[in-house]
């Protein structure tokens, strides 16, 4: 029998309570209209001095730092005034990330690996940050910042080896594809658990400060992950100890199928989270490579001068599925990516370079072709080391390596048992 816990407790003279459950504006089949999104014009948002106390510019958490205007010009106080060579390098890195994503997505579809995650539409978030940070600064990324590695010039072959879990995989086949770890490139081991990297970045930054080091830390998570306790623990710690860390919240509107409203976006901005913690907060156009660069450089300067942490909300859009295991057509309107009012970050930077006479469509097309070839060559080279689709590439007994620094008896025993069983089974997994 169904029970009614409120039976007998409802008061007839009071209005019944009502539970609110957020709902995104558009579902599959809906026409998309983003005109409700409030977009300040490029150049309109003020740029405080990096030495200013965080409580003197809380308004920035509710605005939108934009540099590239509708005429593709870089305008306003946040214009980082980058040299054309730097702009072209950033453009090239972003285009390379996209070419890499497309190739690896296809590789997964071809059965060459188990899993892949693209960052289409969000290339500026990671690439521009990599250009604005020092190479020695430590990055604690989530799973969609492959742009950091690409922009830092890390080997695509090495990344692909990891994606293929092949014989040259630096992670020895122990991690899900794209969960890179590259200490040499200042890129922390990616976790599949969300926002755990946030307090870790703070701890790294605190250690750097405690040691009188000059390196700072930066970390990234999605807007959905800001709901995790780790995010709030990190903000508290960073605020308390004024840690030299940059918090990046990549607000790409979707956490798998949950729109940003389930992380609180209907009530406030994600940059506004900073206000409650008394740390610097910026809300920026995440599809504007120059805004991302400028905000990161500004936050880095604050960190380097012991002004403490900065939280940057990158307002952007996840143009494709969450991962190769996702089909966004099941839960959001197909029209959303093209209707996104902040456009495509690569196209916007390209158009800017063309507008200032430093680039043209022909060179861009040629570069795209060249990058596609470069990725293809890397893929070919990586596949020489094997692909996951062709079976396992690590010696069986390495399964037990790295649980502890020294293998205790119980693992040695399990290892010996496994090797004996597999050998007896005749399965073709013999040690390579």
């Amino acid at each position, binding site marked *: 029998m169904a029970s009614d816990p409120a039976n007998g407790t409802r008061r007839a003279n009071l209005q019944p309570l009502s539970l609110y459950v957020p709902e995104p504006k558009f579902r599959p089949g809906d026409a998309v209209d983003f005109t409700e999104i409030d977009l300040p014009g490029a150049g309109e948002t003020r740029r405080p001095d990096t030495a200013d106390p965080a409580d003197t510019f809380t308004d920035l958490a509710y605005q939108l730092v934009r540099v590239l205007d509708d005429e593709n010009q870089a305008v306003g106080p946040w214009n980082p005034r980058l040299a054309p060579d730097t702009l072209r390098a950033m453009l090239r890195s972003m285009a390379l990330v996209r070419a890499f994503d497309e190739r690896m997505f296809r590789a997964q579809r071809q059965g060459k690996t188990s899993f892949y995650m693209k960052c289409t539409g969000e290339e500026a978030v990671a690439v521009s940050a990599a250009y604005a940070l020092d190479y020695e600064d430590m990055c604690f990324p989530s799973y969609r910042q492959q742009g950091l590695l690409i922009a830092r010039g890390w080997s695509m072959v090495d990344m692909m080896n990891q994606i293929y879990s092949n014989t040259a995989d630096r992670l020895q086949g122990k991690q899900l594809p794209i969960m890179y770890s590259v200490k040499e490139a200042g890129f922390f081991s990616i976790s599949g658990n969300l926002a755990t990297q946030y307090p870790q970045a703070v*701890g790294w930054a605190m250690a750097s400060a405690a040691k009188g080091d000059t390196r700072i830390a930066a970390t990234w998570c999605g807007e959905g992950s800001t709901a995790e306790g780790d995010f709030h623990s990190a903000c508290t710690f960073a605020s308390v100890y004024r840690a030299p860390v940059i918090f990046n919240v990549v607000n790409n509107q979707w956490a798998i199928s949950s729109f940003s409203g389930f992380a609180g976006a209907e009530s406030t901005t994600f940059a506004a989270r900073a206000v409650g913690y008394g740390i610097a907060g910026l809300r920026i156009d995440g599809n504007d490579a120059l805004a991302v660069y400028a905000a990161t450089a500004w936050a880095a300067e604050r960190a380097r001068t012991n002004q403490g942490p900065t939280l940057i909300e990158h307002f952007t859009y996840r143009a494709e599925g969450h991962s190769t295991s996702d089909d966004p057509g099941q839960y959001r309107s197909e029209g959303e990516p093209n209707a996104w009012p902040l456009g495509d970050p690569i196209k916007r930077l390209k158009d800017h370079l063309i507008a200032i006479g430093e680039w043209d469509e022909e060179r861009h097309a040629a570069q795209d072709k060249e990058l596609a070839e470069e990725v293809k060559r890397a893929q070919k080279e990586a596949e020489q080391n094997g692909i996951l689709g062709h079976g396992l590439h690590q010696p069986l007994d390495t399964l037990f390596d790295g649980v502890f620094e020294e293998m205790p008896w*119980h693992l040695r025993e399990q290892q010996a048992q496994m090797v004996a069983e597999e050998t007896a089974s005749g399965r073709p997994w013999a040690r390579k």
Partner: protein
Amino acid sequence: MTDTTIDVQAAGPQAEPSTRMNMIQAINSAMDVMMERDPDVIVMGEDVGYFGGVFRATAGLQAKHGKRRVFDTPITECGIIGVAVGMGAYGLRPVPEIQFADYIYPALDQLVSEAARLRYRSAGEFISPITVRSPFGGGIFGGQTHSQSPEGIFTHVSGIKTVIPSTPYDAKGLLIAAIEDNDPTIFFEPKRIYNGPFDGHWDRPAQNWSKHPAGDVPTGYYKIALGKAKIVRPGEALTVLAYGTMVHVAAAVIAEAGVDAEIIDLRTLVPLDIETIEASVKKTGRCMIVHEATRTSGFGAELSAIVQERCFYHLEAPIERVTGFDTPYPHSLEWAYFPGPVRIGEALKKVMRT
């Protein structure tokens, strides 16, 4: 690092100066010694700084080593461990305190999914050389949120070591070994015996460590290898496996019953000293396991399974498990919950009967 491990007591009389310490002082001394030896060791946690910790385990450390190395933290266990993992990745050797083991649950994700897995998932690029100290266990009228023994949660996790001392001497040597270890270690401190050993009779006068041999603690550096149990009392009739407070309670019951039991203090649960356990049970043919934690899926279940797997044909009686009940730790009925002399005595009769 285990190659340089020495056990001062096992090695006999030492020239090393020693003094009387209770377990708190010994733990304090371990951190002090390590902070002097290694500038990368830092101590943090709720109330551990100026005040010196609610149990005084960090008293004086901030004044001596400075507040950049010994500091208070916000009340977020998730943050404390997450920050420690990041500091470890930087190259420090953090010793975070979780004020009570009962408070450790908000940090579980950072411990289980991060600290324990970092070496494996990064193929050794990053490690978590952190030592999480936390008082655990009951017997102090702490109620259900200041009495729990959650060691079984951590022994179930691959990549974490779990250490539980039972004396001041062991506490210092084991803590130093844990701090020097490059893997994450949970160091549970049996708070009932911080100030003195406990025979399980709550209504008898409290003892202190001043007359106990293991209350004599070297003032300098020494360590006790992780993964090595200690035979507290050699015997032929029965093997008793225990750790922490229950080592003393079991020993008192055994002494009163006049049974020639071999009492093994496990000291480290993971990695377990299987050789000592196996040799003992094969010799005695009987085994009783005593822990304060809840019974189902407790560490005693693992011990029981291991002993059965390895010593089945030597066993002369079913293995006995003496544990806390599968209930929350009650406040007023604490001594009905606690696996004290009555419950241990009954189990002793059963295991010796056949």
